[in-house]
């Protein structure tokens, strides 16, 4: 409980620091708009973590056939989908402000669309199969297959397309300025903590559902 309140205060602090502490980023069309990275980057990172976790729990499910692992894989995928959508929206907003274009099929934009498609496919399998065990096995296999496919895409897309995505161009110098690091890293930690919190609530709910069905 105190830990959760700490997360609450921590994230509020991150939000306040993102607007009040961090300086406007020089070299951008609208220097203040760059503050969105404090929300965009953590969302994208959490989305990737969730995608990996979904695959890891899928492997575990295939190994020991515990339905709890399947539930955890599904929960990771659901949360990953939400965070991926948030990352897409924040990214698109920033692209609109910076380059006056909502969407440009940048490599990162393309890879996140594919990620969303993978999630769509994953949930399509889950809704198409009624039997619990079979649904678990099929979606686990799909989550595992999606991982190398995604890795290849991340590898080839930057070679195919030109990217505008700022990787290390934030603020005037090379790389992030120290003030930005000071806000961004806590923001990433905060979002990861938030992810873990929701993940645990959802797995606890899944566990309760299993117990109720058994009774």
């Amino acid at each position, binding site marked *: 409980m105190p830990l959760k309140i700490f997360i609450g205060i921590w994230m509020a602090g991150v939000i306040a620091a993102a607007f009040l502490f961090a300086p406007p980023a020089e070299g951008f069309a609208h220097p203040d708009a760059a503050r969105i990275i404090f929300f965009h980057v953590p969302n994208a990172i959490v989305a990737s973590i969730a995608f990996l976790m979904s695959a890891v729990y899928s492997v575990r499910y295939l190994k020991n056939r515990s339905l709890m692992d399947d539930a955890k894989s599904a929960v990771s995928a659901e949360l990953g989908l939400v965070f991926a959508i948030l990352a897409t929206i924040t990214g698109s907003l920033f692209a609109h402000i910076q380059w006056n274009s909502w969407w440009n099929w940048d490599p990162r934009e393309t890879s996140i669309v594919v990620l969303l498609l993978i999630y769509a496919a994953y949930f399509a399998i889950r809704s198409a*199969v009624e039997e619990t065990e079979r649904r678990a096995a099929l979606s686990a296999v799909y989550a595992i297959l999606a991982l190398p496919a995604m890795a290849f895409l991340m*590898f080839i897309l930057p070679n*195919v397309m030109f990217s505008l995505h700022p990787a290390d161009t934030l603020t005037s110098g090379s790389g992030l300025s120290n003030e930005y690091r000071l806000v961004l890293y806590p923001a990433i930690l905060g979002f990861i903590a938030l992810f873990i919190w929701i993940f645990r609530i959802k797995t606890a709910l899944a566990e309760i559902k299993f117990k109720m069905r058994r009774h």
Partner: protein
Amino acid sequence: MSIKAQQKPANPAKMIKRTFAVFRKDVLGEFRTRYAMNAIFLFAVTTLVAVSFSIGGADASPSVQSALLWIIIYFSALSGLARAFVKEEESHTASALRLAAAPGAVFGGKLLFNFLLLILLELVTVPLFVGMMSLQVKNWPLFIVVTGAGSAGLAVSATIVSTIVSKANAKGALFAVLSFPILLPAIIGGIKGTKAAITSVLFADGMQDVKLLISYTGVMFVVSLLVFRFIWED
């Protein structure tokens, strides 16, 4: 759990023999019905005619041409390759096959069959495409290598996805949704490599794509082989 027949790690020679036995069975079955071939060829020729009718060939740039070629290959493949395992489930021969051969051999045989289908499809579509779109390829060996490697990648991923689809209920609609994100690296690599073969005489320009397609095929093959038995045996 199903009966584990012939699950002992058989020696490689036996495994290859079984793989080809499954492959032969599928080829013979296909000759009897010609279902997959008809579906693929009709689809390919129809789209090809539609595309070349609307574009007219001459004014399409190399990137458009190579993209169109792979779109035609991909969607024709979708219409035929999905059947690999669905037909076993529909004719209730899946359990017999499960008993007769180890999972690896089944996957290998189906994969070979799908690959053969794709190659046959390309033997017809590619010359037609070249003719109808008045395609000028500067580097034919590269073009052929890219097409072959891309088809191998498509065949591997399509085979494993079709296994998943055969076990799910909504068979028709699911295949396209599931296969697209997984097949995308092969499609992009194929498009890029084909474009390189159209525009440049140098082998080096397309080498990166060929390497990518081969490594994609290899990685997807290994992963598919590892996970295949989890869906096949249930």
